[in-house]
């Protein structure tokens, strides 16, 4: 366990730090390809995929259901990560606890952003060009703001579960990956139940199909969209805390996630949360395999190449409407 804690200190960051330990463990056997490596690559991929559910689910709601291309979502995630970092380092609060406390704050932030977006772009029918530029500007301003406040150093959090890992036979489950994966899936479950069972949730699903019909049933589509967008941004608080548990964060890290989350959202099928889970798992496993067998520096290219192919050949996604 001490070894793992040490390796955490000096590791460079990559989306799959989990395999690094695995690779080192197998290095002694002198094999390029081994059964253990394969199993651990799959496990790491599934755990990573679970975490990707958390970062993507907000985009699935905003982009998939509401048709709002919120490319600033990643910067909300990074913001969440920095808030978790700040409260963790200064007050010793648990990052996950912080993220839960931050949910209402992020929800309000989301509703405020939606209000500006609605008044300035959606109402005027200008969301295509200027709305995109607005979110792009928002992303850029958040990133530069974080650089000005925190600098460009990598930051990380401390918690009891960051170091150790669970070993079952040859399989290695680092808690650092396992906890985010479980929490992300719990969050997915709650949101899926909310969207399919509650009145507001079903109104959110309806607003994506026919806003006029919703109006005729005396439901304000703008209010529903505002609530949904608030929820979408609130998920960024959780995703941010999970992100900084998994690997150290610097302000520009978000860029690597933009393509990734859109790849997952498109791949899984826009507007479908279960599709998002499938897409996230697929991408997680693919990235994990690439990182294990070709080297971590190739992982981003694989996921983005996959996005391009998905866009070119099956833009409606696996579980698309």
């Amino acid at each position, binding site marked *: 366990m001490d070894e793992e804690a040490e390796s955490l200190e000096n590791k460079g960051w990559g989306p799959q730090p989990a395999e690094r330990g695995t690779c080192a463990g197998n290095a002694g056997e002198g094999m390029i390809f081994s059964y253990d490596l394969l199993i651990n690559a799959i496990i790491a991929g599934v755990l990573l995929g679970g975490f990707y559910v958390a970062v993507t689910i907000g985009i699935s709601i905003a982009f998939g259901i509401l048709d709002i*291309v919120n*490319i600033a979502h990643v910067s909300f995630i990074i913001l969440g990560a920095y808030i978790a970092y700040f409260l963790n380092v200064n007050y010793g609060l648990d990052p996950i606890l912080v993220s839960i406390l931050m949910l209402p704050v992020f929800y309000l932030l989301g509703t405020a952003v939606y209000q*500006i977006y609605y008044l*300035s*772009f959606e109402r*005027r029918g*200008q969301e*295509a*060009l*200027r709305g*995109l*530029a*607005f979110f*792009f*500007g*928002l992303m*850029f*301003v958040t*990133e*530069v*703001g974080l*650089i*000005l406040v925190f600098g460009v150093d990598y930051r990380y959090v401390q918690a009891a579960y960051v170091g150790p890992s669970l070993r079952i036979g040859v399989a290695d489950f680092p808690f650092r990956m396992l906890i985010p994966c479980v929490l992300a899936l719990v969050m997915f479950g709650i949101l899926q139940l909310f969207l399919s069972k509650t009145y507001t949730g079903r109104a959110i699903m309806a607003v994506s199909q026919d806003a006029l019909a919703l109006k005729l049933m005396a439901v304000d589509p703008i209010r529903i969209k505002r609530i949904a967008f608030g929820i979408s941004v609130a998920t960024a608080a959780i995703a941010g805390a999970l992100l900084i548990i998994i690997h150290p964060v610097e302000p*520009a890290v978000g*860029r*690597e996630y*933009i*393509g990734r989350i*859109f*790849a997952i959202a*498109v791949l899984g099928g826009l507007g479908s949360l279960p599709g998002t889970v499938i897409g996230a798992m697929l991408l997680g496993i693919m990235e994990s395999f690439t990182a294990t067998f070709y080297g971590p*520096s*190739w992982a*981003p*290219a694989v996921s*983005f*190449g996959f*996005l*391009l192919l998905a*866009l*070119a050949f099956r*833009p409606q996604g696996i579980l698309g409407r």
Partner: protein
Amino acid sequence: MRWPTFLAIALAVALAVAAVARFYGNEYYFIAAYVVLQYVVLATAWNILGGYAGYVNFGSAAFFAAGAYTTIAFHSVVSLPIPVLIVLGGIVSGVIGFIAGYLTLRLRGVFFAIATLALAVVLQTLIINWDHVGGSRGAYLLRAHEFPYIGSYMQYLFLMMLLLAVVAVSVARLIERSWLGFGLAAIRDDEAAAEASGVPTLRLKLIATTVSGAFMGMAGAPFPYMLGYVDPASAFNLAYAVNAIAMPMIGGTTTWVGPVIGAILLGTIQQVATVTISSAVNLLIVGLVLIGFVILAPNGIVGLFQQWFGKRRAR
């Protein structure tokens, strides 16, 4: 004004700019002017697709870097003059634009926008893993101090960029006033209606993407000679992508003047802010100005002028 007249006037303006720069003679002014002109080319190129057709390209940095790395890739093999490198960079970026466009332009505009974001990361990953061009370490490139008949090498680069800016703006204006520009404007206003009335939408969008990408590559081609060193982080800098969008948005996207005004204004402000405040703050300014303009003045500075002088055209 017919286009040869316009080209002549643009060249005259360029000549005047060059003469003034020469008069001051400070090497720093050439570097600053080069950067501003580079943004004029980038913003104009972005606007050919983004402003005229309404398709947002977030990957300007990728096209720019593709031009810069074409120079690096050729530099270690054979020594070529800068104009040839500019053309080569333009071809490579144009081809990239064509392929990316062919794959994604049949979908709604937002998918193209997302694909360009992804394209930037894919290309950067390829470059990082490609040792021939220096990988993640970057590549050094030696340049001469002097250039015959002109003086310092920086002045030569500045003149090249000036010429490129004139060409880019002229082409943008030509496109804007031709059948191509009208077709693109029809796509921007209502793509389904345009398609229904016989506009070959996919073909026009592909032409616009290719031309736009090519000019971005051309803007990037002399970049390694300017710095003498290139690494993926500097060539793929997000600042290029942001500026390429912000400048036309601030200037006004529907005419060729908009990006030129935006680039000169914002480019100069950034040059001043980088020297006097800090480079992080000047990027913050760009982001805030972009947000402010898209919310408050959606038609940019050109739109504001049209409003003030009472001849505001219905978009």
